[in-house]
């Protein structure tokens, strides 16, 4: 099909630090240097104090399941043979909400509130992306 282009990520100027950190297996987020608010997605000004002293920092990579569901139909060729995927909205401990999915092979039975931790997987084009596993019991 002519439409079979993959949904390949496109790095832009502002997101370079995120993708560079992902290459190192690190989840990076923007943080306001003035008031400490974490920002996601990428912003040019703090959404809390309107400050411009935005810095990139290593995030905890930990959070809990705000919501979850299972992707059963997709029009994207990269999902062929991989469905269902367990999608999650993760409320990171930095108080930002992150849309992602469980890592491949992770047991799909999650509940709202379950603790998760980030791991990285590579998309078909090699782009490393943050996905989540259950947080190891401590």
């Amino acid at each position: 099909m002519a439409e079979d282009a993959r949904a390949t990520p496109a790095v832009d100027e502002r997101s370079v630090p995120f993708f560079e950190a992902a290459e190192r297996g690190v989840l990076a987020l923007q943080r306001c240097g003035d008031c400490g608010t974490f920002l996601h997605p990428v912003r040019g000004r703090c959404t809390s104090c309107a400050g411009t002293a935005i810095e990139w920092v290593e995030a905890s990579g930990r959070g809990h399941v705000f919501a979850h569901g299972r992707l059963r139909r997709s029009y994207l060729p990269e999902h062929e043979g991989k469905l269902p995927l367990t999608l999650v909205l993760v409320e990171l401990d930095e108080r930002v909400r992150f849309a992602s999915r469980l890592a491949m092979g992770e047991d799909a039975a999650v509940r709202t509130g379950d603790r998760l931790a980030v791991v990285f997987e590579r998309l078909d084009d090699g782009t490393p992306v943050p996905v989540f596993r259950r947080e190891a019991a401590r």
Partner: protein
Amino acid sequence: MGSNHSLSGRTAISGLGMTELGRVYGRTATDFAVEAVVRALADAGLAKSELDGLLLNAGISQGIDLSLAQAIGLPALSLQTQMNGFGSTAGQMVGYAAMAVSAGLAKHVACVFADAPLVPGERAGRAYGGGRTGRRGMSSILPALGFAGPIPYYALLAQRHMDLYGTTQDQLGAVALSSRAWARRNPLATMREPLDLAGYHASPWITEPFHVLDCCLVSNGAICVIVSSAESARDLARPPVYVRGAAQAHQLEWDDTVPSLAQRSSRAAFEMAGCAPSDITLCQIYDCYTFTVVTTLEDYGFCKRGEGGPFAASGALAEGGALPTNTGGGMLSGYYMWGMTPISEAVIQARGDGGARQVDRTDLIAVSGNGGIFNYHATLVLSPHAR
């Protein structure tokens, strides 16, 4: 009951124009929009030259823009703009039109939605949720992760509602069944074959907990309403449908711990109308998904938080129920004209034009519009009575 608000009951919907709706091919969104405006003018008994305001909203296909005035032939508008609050736009347009007419800035304002995303041989889901939208930056990883289009977000929030409140799949299905039962009596509705709970469960999964029958249709067509002053509407061809309340509310993202946008919007609209939720006799809810009906019933105060599912499954939304809802089949089984689907059905019912689906109690009709991922909301209270 009674309102002291200066806007309540001052304006009315005087005209309604609807084109053929659904898998209707061979016409552009502009063609549909022109037809809807012309039909609304004829319905109201207004000459084209009397129309001095035009608000427009393009749908998925973004097929209409400000050049619509040229296509209709409206040489002397005193008010015109293109608006977008996604599913909340139509309610917002009526609200802004009511404000403009009340303030004397225009006499008759047409509010039109038009869309033509469906092409022959292509599935509605592809027209709607393709996902290759030219994103850049961090959000460009979302489609590959599984978040293409709005369905996954709403499905996940529905699952959260199920986890927190015990809402069941059968209760979501009850919303789909109720809409279908109403649609069967609406000759314009797209989905008119019978549906039972087994048929609902058997329909394909899209993103769990949503079956395809939890998701609205995609439709081609256009709907226009004309807002006029109450006085002038009384002299026009059809019974006025008064704008008793109009409000909006917006939020950055879904948050269970604060009053939701739909709570805030409905409270403001009900306050303007001088009514309580218990005074509402008929409801037209923006049903992009079965789940949005469940949450809107809760947010509007028709039942408590977490009880929207049992409320829907009780039969309340059906003919003879406590709160007949989406009496034209909504967007789940009727047609997907964004916020114009619920508004047009409210006008039809308020006028007594519902035919086989006409309900008895139309005194106060609540109409909702929801856009984004619960980001943008508009509420109207419409009535056949000025006060």
